[in-house]
């Protein structure tokens, strides 16, 4: 009898998910220990697109650092740019004009919207509903057009410079943005009918990949992922920067901490983002769009930490300056990196299909993790 039970015991085996895999969204490699389809352990292996941005920053001027952050979390590039600019402005004690603050806030929120739209589409695709991907991109296209017209590029915009903006907004910017908001207010309920209310989708999401509030804090999980667990971590609320202290918006908090809560959190954030843009778009104050800075910016000796809320969570820039034209040490605290660390905890005991769902609700962007 003893022998029989021995034989029936299943054996763990390993499977390499990635670096080339449709649902890792880039070159993330996960080594899964599986028992049948049940996941025993997930071990992320990173660094396939590590470009040592931090090391490059130690040799670059502060204006040049800004454009490198575009290449990290490319879906919230404007917010990343802003973090560096804010840190430099803080160190130089520059007060940017109100116009800059409002424009930056609007574009931040547009970036967040476009990032969440892409996430929604990709999430549907990960779960097998390929059509959502096209719908998500269809709506995102309008935002990228707005960006292209005003900032000059669709993805890596590099619209911020320390001390303000590259140039003023395009004359069409306000009208286009308002048109987009009216359009998207009609389309967002469609997202709900197509995916959120779908019974298959509900089954796939509910109760999967639970993360308690304590674990979320301990793992440093921020952004919509952390807020879905009830961890109030919205930097826009807690440490307001730019024009966020002037607008009314709700910090979306979930309680469940499962995939569905994370999903709903992001959908609710899209509504909030639209309301923020609507509050600001007609009230852009007149004025200059940059404060003149020296051609070679030298920060005083000291250290600064600036955090901003990207679409994925808390993005931090830690600058240590020795008074040179380049920082002595510069560290990017990327949200994806910390969020990824909780993946193993969330995915244990789930099935492979659940792992895909969990990964898409974490909304990982691999360049953001590898830097």
């Amino acid at each position, binding site marked *: 009898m003893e022998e029989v039970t021995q034989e029936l015991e299943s054996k763990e085996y390993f499977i390499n998910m990635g670096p080339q895999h449709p649902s890792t969204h880039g070159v993330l490699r996960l080594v899964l220990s599986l028992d049948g389809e049940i996941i025993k352990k997930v071990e992320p292996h990173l660094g396939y697109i590590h470009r040592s941005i931090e090391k490059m920053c130690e040799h670059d001027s502060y204006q040049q650092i800004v454009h490198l952050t575009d290449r990290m979390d490319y879906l919230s590039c404007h917010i990343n740019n802003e973090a560096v600019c804010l840190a430099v402005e*803080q160190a130089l004690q520059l007060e940017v004009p109100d116009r800059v603050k409002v424009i930056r806030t609007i574009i931040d929120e547009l970036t967040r919207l476009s990032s969440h739209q892409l996430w929604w589409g990709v999430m549907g695709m990960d779960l097998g509903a390929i059509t959502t991907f096209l719908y998500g991109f269809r709506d995102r296209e309008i935002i990228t057009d707005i960006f292209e017209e005003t900032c000059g590029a669709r993805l890596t915009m590099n619209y911020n410079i320390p001390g303000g903006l590259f140039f003023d907004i395009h004359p069409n910017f306000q009208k286009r943005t308002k048109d987009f908001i009216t359009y998207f207010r009609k389309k967002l309920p469609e997202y709900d009918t197509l995916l959120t209310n779908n019974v298959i989708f509900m089954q796939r999401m509910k109760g999967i990949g639970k993360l308690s509030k304590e674990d979320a804090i301990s793992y440093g999980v921020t952004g919509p992922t952390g807020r879905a667990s009830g961890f109030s971590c919205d930097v826009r609320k807690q440490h307001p920067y730019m024009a966020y202290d002037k607008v009314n918006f709700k910090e979306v908090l979930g309680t469940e901490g499962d995939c569905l809560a994370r999903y709903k959190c992001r959908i609710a954030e899209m509504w909030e983002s639209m309301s923020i843009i609507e509050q600001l778009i007609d009230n852009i104050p007149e004025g200059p769009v940059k404060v003149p800075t020296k051609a070679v910016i030298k920060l005083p000796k000291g250290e600064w930490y600036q955090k901003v809320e990207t679409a994925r969570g808390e993005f931090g820039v830690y600058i240590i300056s020795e008074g040179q034209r380049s920082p*002595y*040490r510069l560290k990017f605290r990327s949200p994806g*990196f910390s969020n990824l*660390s909780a993946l193993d905890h969330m995915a244990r005991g789930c099935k492979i299909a659940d792992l895909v769902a969990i990964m898409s609700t974490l909304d990982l962007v691999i360049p953001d993790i590898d830097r």
Partner: protein
Amino acid sequence: MHNEGIQKFILDRVPEAECVEGTQFLQVTIPSEKILPLASELKSNEATSFDFLFCLTGVDWPAHMEVVYHLKSTQHQHQLVLKAKINSRENPEVATVCHIWRTAELHEREAYELFGIKFLNHPDLRRLLLPDDWEGWPMRKDYDDPINMIAY
């Protein structure tokens, strides 16, 4: 708790701590061997309860190494920068904090591979971003890489 309170809290436990009131945060530098008891105290004590480690990184100074912990309390909303000063640059060692804040596990692996700081008792201290057979600690100031030299 205000910065003065935290300063007093730390000075009570680690008398040799150097406290600097920075532009944003209170910056406290302590010797690296004192980090583990202080960190667990900061996390578990009701008065401080620093439960959110939002950034962990290493810094390579000319004479010493430093591990910088950015801490925040989600309950009291106060923040603190804790710096563990490691005097040896040749063989830097510091106790791990990854059982106190689990996010530290990946961050410490990153700091290990970029600066060569050994985190004692870390469950899985391996290279993270670079290939496993990479030699040297690339973020150190004296790191010399003739092949992938930054064109400048």
